[in-house]
């Protein structure tokens, strides 16, 4: 126990989250999710399974949607991480967030932030996805309330708005 009882001998990993750099005092194998939620107080990514199976914890790392529950801190260091809290820009909600409100695309909403992040990564690389591409992009996101078709409608709506806007 050279590092003391708290076991934080590996201090000072630098993370870039939502455009800001943070020094994090946690073991390098700590799942990114716990650091986001407990150290950075960003509660939007949520614990669902810890196994990368449900997508509730999805964040964007260097442009790709990934589950943060099984991504070690060491693998996230030096990369650009975006969480749902970093999606709004210039005080305006992201078109996906607006579309989810417009379509009332949530029941309990626990899956929603992960789904919006998966969709944001998709629209970032493919502004005009087909229905199949949208559904495939959400393959790793589970919704238990059965809000799927509202969510799909919201994503189609956001894609349309974003294409109009550019």
């Amino acid at each position, binding site marked *: 126990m050279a590092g003391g009882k708290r076991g934080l001998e590996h201090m000072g990993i630098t993370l870039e989250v939502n455009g800001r750099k943070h020094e994090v005092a946690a073991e390098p194998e700590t799942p990114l999710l716990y650091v986001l939620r407990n150290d950075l107080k960003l509660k939007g990514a949520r614990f669902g399974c810890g196994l990368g199976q449900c997508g509730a914890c999805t964040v964007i790392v260097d442009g790709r949607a990934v589950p943060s529950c099984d991504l070690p801190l060491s693998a996230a260091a030096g990369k650009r991480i975006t969480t749902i809290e970093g999606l709004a820009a210039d005080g305006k909600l992201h078109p996906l967030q607006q579309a989810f409100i417009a379509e009332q695309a*949530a029941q309990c*909403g626990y899956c929603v932030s992960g789904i919006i992040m998966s969709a944001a990564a998709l629209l970032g690389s493919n502004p005009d996805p087909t229905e199949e591409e949208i559904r495939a992009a959400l393959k790793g996101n589970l919704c238990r309330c059965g809000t799927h078709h509202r969510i799909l409608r919201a994503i189609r709506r956001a894609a349309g708005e974003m294409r109009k806007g550019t």
Partner: protein
Amino acid sequence: MTDRQSAARRLPGSLDTNRRLDRWLRINRDGTVTAFPGKVEIGQGILTALAQIVAEELDVALERVRLAPTDTSYSPDEGVTSGSRSIQEGGVALRHAAAEARELLLARAAAKLGVSLEQLSVADGVITARGGASVTYWELADESLLAREASADAAPKPPSQRSLVGTAVPRRDIPAKVTGAPSYVQDLELPGMLHGRVLRPPSYGARLAGLDEPELRALPGVVAVVRDGSFVGVVAEREEQAVRALARARRIARWEESETLPATTDPRFLLGEQTEDEVISRKGDPAAAPAAKRLEAEYTRPYIAHASLAPSCAVAIFEAGRYTVWTHSQGVFPLRRDLAHVLGVEEERVAVIHAEGAGCYGHNGADDVALDAALLARAVAGRPVRVQWMREDEFMWEPYGPAMVVRMSGALDAQGNIVAWTHDLWSNGHSTRPSGRGGGVAGTLAARHLERPFTPQATGNPPLPGGGSHRNAIPLYEFPNQRVTNHLVKRTPLRVSALRSLGGNANVFAIESFMDELAHAAGADPVEFRLRHLRDPRARAVIETVARQAGWRAGEKGDGVRGRGIGFARYKNLACYVAVIVEVEAGNEITVRRAWAAIDAGMAVNPDGLKNQTEGGIIQTVSWTLKEAVRYDRTRILTRSWDDYPILAFPEAPEVEVTVIDRPEEPPLGAGEGAQGPTAAAIANAIHNALGVRLRDMPFTREKVVAALAG
């Protein structure tokens, strides 16, 4: 405890058991209104609907209405948020309380302005006399205003005067949820908060035989290790440290296990169990036409997991002999009594505060983890402890929706009308929610693992007409001869409790599948055949509406790949009416491509909320029906992760179209669970329509379809 006075007359909804107006409402001097619901948000949008009701009856803008979290220290005790009763009980109570508050405010205004009541009008809390003088609610209100028993003499608004109720007001919680703002008990963070995890036994029958506690205590960040019998918990400074300590504990704990589970996952093992039998409906008409053709069929449903997306979570603090617990329980008052009993303290020393969780769809691990958190908090007095279950804790230990077997028999006369009908169902009771009645019984999980264990809450059924395992077992159709028998299985090898719609899912699945089988035998169109046996005009209306909406053609046949089927029920035989048509496609697997539904829930407080609940109910039931079954061997539950328990995913999700039949003059009817039965049957009927094979055992996996086609 309730406020019920002597033998007072019955008041509407939950007002009857919580009779003081200030239990429900407070008019604040800052221009807001606080409502105190005893029903809780579980993703069904109830808080938005309740706010609509309060704003409507008080004549204030919706934005002025605040909803206080349900808290045992001040909220009305409305029991459990279940059974689609929140609008009927809590909504109705708030509706009458708000209407009465408005009258009291008007009386005060009349006195203050020196005018008669008839001269007053209200707009957004401003009361104006005909002469122009005005006064606001916020000026008139004080603590004495609502410090009285409700009379329920103030009539709520008639439909013609409503402007908020009946409209699709956007949900108030969605903006926070799409921006990632803290919204759930899982997101709660208190100063100095620690993180706990519980080492659950590997199986129901397991007993802890050995554990090197000092080894756990020496792990990084570990603050406490709690061991009490077979209950083991770890508390650490950081969440990942608690998770790592749990992983180590799993490796080093030694358990003695035993075989306690059924030899088969086929629900028919229930037929060999001891039962208490009760005939719950019997009708006989000797003048009925003689039977020309008889049919029999047996339908089954496996154990189904609630499988909430969020493993259950609670935060607790133990300080100066008192516990405060934040929980997503559906019943904070019964939970409080259960906790006090297990913790061995007076009820007054436990405060239970509701904070939202993810959708639960019934009784999951919410109450259990509240006890876990309290037990761990006791070991680190003064510091809050947050406990979230791991995924496998939830899958292995949540109480499942019970497995069921339903045997049907029926007879047609020479004209193809049903002249005899029997329905026999085998199931456990459908609720083991904590009752908090004490006596060494507890509904919370850890209580059974303690050194001095508590007896698990026995299974029970809510009484008819709503019912539990026998929910919806009595058909709404008119048959001259009928017998419905509930074979209540007492032994509960698997932990079970309330899952959305209780027995309504399997009973309606059986009834509505069998109606199709009889229609087929009679050479009749399934829509026409149902209408022929149904008198209730509202029941007929949902069937006719959905048939029109889906463009149903009498006698339509599937093409060997695609096919459509219908299902119908009135939930609990007293709540909403729902009819569903689905279109399936048989490829490698069965897929539901589209679904149409019509729902009549009486007065629709928020039509979009009704749609959302019905769409969700349909899609969730598609998942149950096509994919879901809890797996186990003789010793252990084998369902531990989403790999072991696949649910419907985005690539396979159907398009859904719901029509709301609004009846503003009618009382509101519970609407959260009405799709669960009809959808399951509609899928079975659509598969038969498409492929000509009848599937009677859920879930309809590829193997079942292949076997049916081969058979």
